Every structure is written in C-alpha cells, then in structure tokens.
C-alpha cells in the first residue's frame, strides 16, 4: 500500500465533524431515523480510528525527532500576533488520537444499545461526534490557540451532554456547574497564553519550547507563573483540587458520556497539557512540585470520599478524580511516559468500569420500569447479587477492579507502579516527593478497598432490588457487552505497552515518547534507584493493593445492607465522607453566597438600579426633559417677546460684525 501523505492529517478530526453535521441535521429534521444515526455516528468514529491508525503507522515509519507541523491557513494575522490554523502530529499526540478515536468508537458502539429508547437519540450522537472532533483538535493543535479551541469545545460538549436530560433541574444545574467551574480554569490557561506571548512573541509550540531553555532561568518567576497558570487550567479541566467539584455532579449525564468524556478522554486533557508543556514545567521546580503535590493530595482526598458513596457512578467519579491525581503526580515528577501510560490504561479500565456500571444501571432501570417502581437505579443499596443475572458484566468489571487496584499483571499495576516508583526516586533528591509517594500509597490502599466495596455491594450478597423486579433483571444486549469485552482485553493486555526493564520488558511507550520528552528530560533528568529498591517498592504496592481487597472482603457485609429507602441516615465519619467533606457546602458559604450577595445587594440594587437605571438612563431622560422645559419657556406665543429677542439678536450680530 502506498504511504498516504501525513498532510492529510486533517481528515482525522474532520470525520467526526462530518458525523456531527449529518447527525445534527437528522436531529433537527428526522429525529426518529435511529438506524441512520447509528451508522453515521459509529461509522465516522470507526473511520476516524482507521485514519488515526494509518497516520500513526506512517509516523512510526518516519519516527521524526521533531513534531510534524501542517499549516492549513492563516487564522489570526493581527500585527505581531500571527496564528495559523495548524495541526501537528508527534509521538505524544499519536498516543492521544489512538485513545480518543479507539475508546471513542467503542463507547459510541455501546451507546447504540444504551440510548436505544431515548427520544433524543440523534441529538445525543451529534453531541458525541462533536465532542470527538474537538478532542482531536485539542490534541492535534500545533499552537496554544488551536489547542484552546479544542479545550473550550470539549467543555461545551461536556456541558451539553451533562445536561442532556435538561428537563430535570438537577441535570441542568450540574451542566451549569461544570461550565462555570471550567471557566475559572480557562482564565488560568488564557493568562498563561498571554504571558507566553509577551515573552516569546509567538504561540507556536515548536518555537516556544525550543526557545524556552534559553529564555528562562530555571526557577525564574515568569516561567513559574506560566506553569502555575497553566496548571490552574488543568485543575479545572482535569478535576483536581480545588476545582474538582464539577466532576462528581457531571455523573448526571448519560453513562456512556461519563465513560468517554468524564473518565477516558476530556478530563485527561490537563495531563496531556502538562506533558506537552513538559519543557516549561522542567524549568520550574516549584511549578512541577505544585503539580505533583496537588495530584497526590487529590488522589488521597478523592479516594476517602469514594469510600462512603452509595451512588455507583459517584464512586467511579471520585475514583476518576483520584486516578487523575496519580497522572499529575507522574507528569509533575517529570515521568511523562509514566503519566501518559497511566492515562492510557486508565482510559481502558475506567471506560470499562463506567460502561459496566451503565450496563448495571440499564438493567436495574428496566426492572423498575417494568414494575412501575420509582427507586434510585444507581444506588448500590438497591443492587446486590447481580453476578447471577449479569455474569459477563460482573466478570469484566472484576477485571477492571483488579486492574485499578494494581494487581499484576493487569495494566493498572504497571502504570500505577511506575508513577509511584518515579515519585519515590525523585524523593531521594527532593525529599518532599516522599510525602507525595506516601499519599499515593495510601490512596492505592483506599482505591483497592472502595473498588472491592463497589463490586461486593453491586454483584454479591443477596439481591435488594425487590421481589417483583428480580425476574426482569438480565444481561445487556451484545451491542453493549461487545465493547465491554474489547475493553476487558485492553485492560488485561494494556500493560504490555510499557513493561519496564525491571520485568524484562522494553519500555516501549517510554522509548516511543522520547523524541517529545527528551528536551524536558535533559533539563530535569530522571532519578534512578537500585533494582533492589524497585523490587521492594513493587512488592509493597502489590501488598497494599491485596490488603485493600482482602480488608474489604473481611470488613464489609453485603448481607447486612437494606434497600436505600429503608436505610437509616448515616452518622459520624461515614456521614462526613458521604457528604464529601462538606466541600460543596464550604464553597457555597465562602464563594457562592458572597458572590450572590454582592451581585444582589451591590451590583443589582445599587449599581444597576440606582446608578445605571437611576442616574444614567432615567437621568439622561430627566436632563433632556429639563432642557426642553427651559426651551419651551421661550415659546410664549407672544409676538412682542419674539421681537425683543429678535432685536437683541440683531444687535448682537451687528455688534460682533462691527467690532
């Protein structure tokens, strides 16, 4: 087969865009044409995956040391600011486009089954296609503004899909929350862009990263500011402390959306951004320490919340926040390959977990629907013993659970272990990393525990769905289990992508990414530790994971659970964790309410009503009326007065002329 020119790279994002246009048209004209929508929606994604695979194969053949940049047109030619619409393909972007289109295609396929009875089917697929388009623009952009277009676009699609069932207030609110919280992060991204532009006069990745080592002293104030503002953007998009609060609420959207956008792809954009800007972070020890520190704190914090959630999707949401924290520990440490590796494996096993939970919710929902019962189909207290009814889903979710817990030889074991190993090694040079490592280990213990808890309560013990509902419980159709099986295989095999030397592997991903990460690695070399230490770390991590799983089996009693509507209110620490450390309440008290008060009492009642409406609008009207009244006093209707004024006028003119 002749090699296609890589300048056809635009085809990859264009395919989902075509899908969006077609499905959007169908949504407006023929919303009932579900067959056509499915073919277009899934078909464009499969084609996009094929195109991405071809592009990556060609990239692998050339294996260039610099990104291949394709400028398509001048986008913003404004004086000194010259921005082209340009895409670039390098080894890092290659990993991302494969994950986005690959996992995306699987989830599109799953959605065909999951959303089948949905009236907004066409609208759903239009949004989903649009999301993939923007995500590809995000990862393929060759400069900050193009990336930012994708960054905002995925935020928009996230908003649209979280609020997909916008008839219910809670869903619309959740979408709004995600959108607003992300605006705060975007502010950071924008400020970082402005700083970069003032320093370099360009926003192209290639130029900025090539010039950065000469332009900045390591640890300089400007580069630290840039990295911190960039990371503020990441905390918004990738749900890290303090802006993680939108992600658990985002679970109001359809479950495949949670799998695709809020677990596998969009929320990893921040990790991708840090890896992409690795040179800048390598130049700023403080910036990278903040990234790793916030990541470690988030990993531990979110894991504690996941311990006591009852909503199956909320557990997975906090788990996602926690795992994203791990990725930031990786990229913050400078272990970009490890961070990206965890991004990929997490995309596999978390997508599997979410789709599996979708399959469970689908079954419970149908059971309640069949008997016209109004119960919460997502509450684990209404589940239990489902392994008997849905063996495929249960088995596959167990695989993903063991992977996320870090049991060898599943994919999550390798990626999580590499991040923790890199953090520990960094600790030998910068001791604060020992703290991050310890938090990561603690989070690993909790992860193993809460995931086992989820599995026990959902699939084992007695069933609590209800007597009549039980007979309606059944496994999902093949169109839904199919993607689950593929993701299950990827979850098992994904670790092979980057088996480290320690286990006799060739660390494929690490070498693959070397052209991208080499400059950052030169500025901030990775620390090596002895093999014996590494073995000890691996053994410790596996032991911790096993402890978490066994502990959950010993401590938890699924038999003792009662259905949600009969359950007593929680007390003490359990309630504190169930209420998510009251962080939402805290933000409400210190941010939302003061802002609302300020808007209502000052901006509305004083600035708007008194100053704008009163002084400016009504004031202008009153002033012209007063002037008009003065003028009308001159119009007496008496000719005598006019004549007097006329004579005065003539005398004034004559006086002026004569003088």
């Amino acid at each position, binding site marked *: 087969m002749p090699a296609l020119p890589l300048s056809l790279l635009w085809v990859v994002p264009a395919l989902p865009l075509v899908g969006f246009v077609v499905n959007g048209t169908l949504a407006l004209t023929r919303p009932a044409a579900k067959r056509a929508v499915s073919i277009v929606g899934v078909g464009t994604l499969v084609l996009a995956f094929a195109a991405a695979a071809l592009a990556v194969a060609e990239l692998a053949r050339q294996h260039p040391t610099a990104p291949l940049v394709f400028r398509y047109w001048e986008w913003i030619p404004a004086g000194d600011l010259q921005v082209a619409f340009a895409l670039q393909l390098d080894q890092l972007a290659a990993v991302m486009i494969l994950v986005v289109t690959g996992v995306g295609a699987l989830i599109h396929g799953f959605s065909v089954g999951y959303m089948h009875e949905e009236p907004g089917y066409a609208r759903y697929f239009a949004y989903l296609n649009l999301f993939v388009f923007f995500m590809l623009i995000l990862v393929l952009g060759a400069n900050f503004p193009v990336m930012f277009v994708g960054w905002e676009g995925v935020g928009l699609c996230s908003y649209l899909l979280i609020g997909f069932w916008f008839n219910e207030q809670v869903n619309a609110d959740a979408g709004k929350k995600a959108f607003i919280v992300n605006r705060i992060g975007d502010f950071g991204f924008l400020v970082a862009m402005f700083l970069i532009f003032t320093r370099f006069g360009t926003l192209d990745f290639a130029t900025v990263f090539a010039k950065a080592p000469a332009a900045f002293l390591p640890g300089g104030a400007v580069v630290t500011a840039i990295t911190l503002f960039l990371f503020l953007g990441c905390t918004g998009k990738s749900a890290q402390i303090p802006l993680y609060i939108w992600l658990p609420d985002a679970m109001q959207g359809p479950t495949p959306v949670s799998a695709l956008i809020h677990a596998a792809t969009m929320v990893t954009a921040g990790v991708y951004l840090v890896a992409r800007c690795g040179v800048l972070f390598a130049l700023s020890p403080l910036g990278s320490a903040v990234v790793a520190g916030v990541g470690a704190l988030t990993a531990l914090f979110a894991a504690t919340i996941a311990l006591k959630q009852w909503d199956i999707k909320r557990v997975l949401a906090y788990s996602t926040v926690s795992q994203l924290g791990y990725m930031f520990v990786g990229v913050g440490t400078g272990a970009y390959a490890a961070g990206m590796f965890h991004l990929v494996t997490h995309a596999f096993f978390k997508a599997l977990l979410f789709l599996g939970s979708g399959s469970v919710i689908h079954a419970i929902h149908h059971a309640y629907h069949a008997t016209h019962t109004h119960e919460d189909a997502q509450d684990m207290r209404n589940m239990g013993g489902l392994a008997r009814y849905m063996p495929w889903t249960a088995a596959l979710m167990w695989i993903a659970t063991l992977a996320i817990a870090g049991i060898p030889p599943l994919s999550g074991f390798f990626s999580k272990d590499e991040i923790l190993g890199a953090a520990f090694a960094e600790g030998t040079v910068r001791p604060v990393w020992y703290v991050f490592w310890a938090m990561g280990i603690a989070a690993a213990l909790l992860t193993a525990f809460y995931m086992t808890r989820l599995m026990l309560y959902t699939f084992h013990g007695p069933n609590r769905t209800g007597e009549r509902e039980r007979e309606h419980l059944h496994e999902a159709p093949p169109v839904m289990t199919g993607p689950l099986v593929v993701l299950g295989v990827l979850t098992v095999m994904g670790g092979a992508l980057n088996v480290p030397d320690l286990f006799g592997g060739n660390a494929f991903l690490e070498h693959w990414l070397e052209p991208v990460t080499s400059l950052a690695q030169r500025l901030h070399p990775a620390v090596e530790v002895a093999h014996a230490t590494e073995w000890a770390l691996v053994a410790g991590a596996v032991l911790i994971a096993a402890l978490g799983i066994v502990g959950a089996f010993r401590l938890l009693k699924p038999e003792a659970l009662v259905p949600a509507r009969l359950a007593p209110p929680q007390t003490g620490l359990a309630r504190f964790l169930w209420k998510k450390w009251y962080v939402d309440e805290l933000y409400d008290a210190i941010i939302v309410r003061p802002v609302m008060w300020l808007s209502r009492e000052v901006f509305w009642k004083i600035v708007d009503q008194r100053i704008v409406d009163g002084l400016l609008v009504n004031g202008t009207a009153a002033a012209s009326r007063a002037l008009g009244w003065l*003028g*009308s*006093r*001159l*119009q*007496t*209707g*008496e*000719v*005598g007065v006019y*004549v*007097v004024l006329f*004579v005065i006028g003539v005398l004034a003119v004559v006086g002026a002329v004569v003088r």
Partner: protein
Amino acid sequence: MLLGPSLAVSAVLFALGVAGVLLRRNAIVIFMCVELMLNAVNLTFVALAQQLGIAGQIFVFFVMAVAAAEAGVGLAIMLAIYRHRHTVNLQDINLLKG
C-alpha cells in the same frame, strides 16, 4: 441736500419704528411702525444716492413695491385674524406657545 441731517432724520425714524414695534400691542400700529422703518431706510438710500450713484434711488422703488405687497398681505392676514378673534391685540393672540 445735506447728507448729515438726512441720515440723522433717517436714524431717528428707524429708531422710532423699532421702538414702536417693541412697545406697542396693536397689530395695525406695529405694522405702521414696520413701514416707518422701511421708509427710514428709503431715506438713507436717497441721501446716499447723491454721492454714490443712481442705484440707491432705483432701489427705493423696489422697497416701495415690496412694502406695498407686504401691506396687502399683512392687512389681509389681520382681517382674517380679526374675524376669528375679534381683536388685533397681539397679547391676546398667543396660541402657539411651548
């Protein structure tokens, strides 16, 4: 004819006309004062024509013609007003006010 006294008489006549227009209420009287001013101007024209050429005398005829036409129109308007309002006192005719 001496120039100085002629212009002085003309100025006095014009000032009387202005004063009449400003001070009187009766429309007929005001109208007559306007005519007075026109004639004061005519006198100036005639007086200055002795030194500056015949053009001033010719202009006087134009002014007379215009004044006659004005008298015709003006008196007709006043008649019309009188029929409506039974007065030609300008203080009573003040409907057009702001």
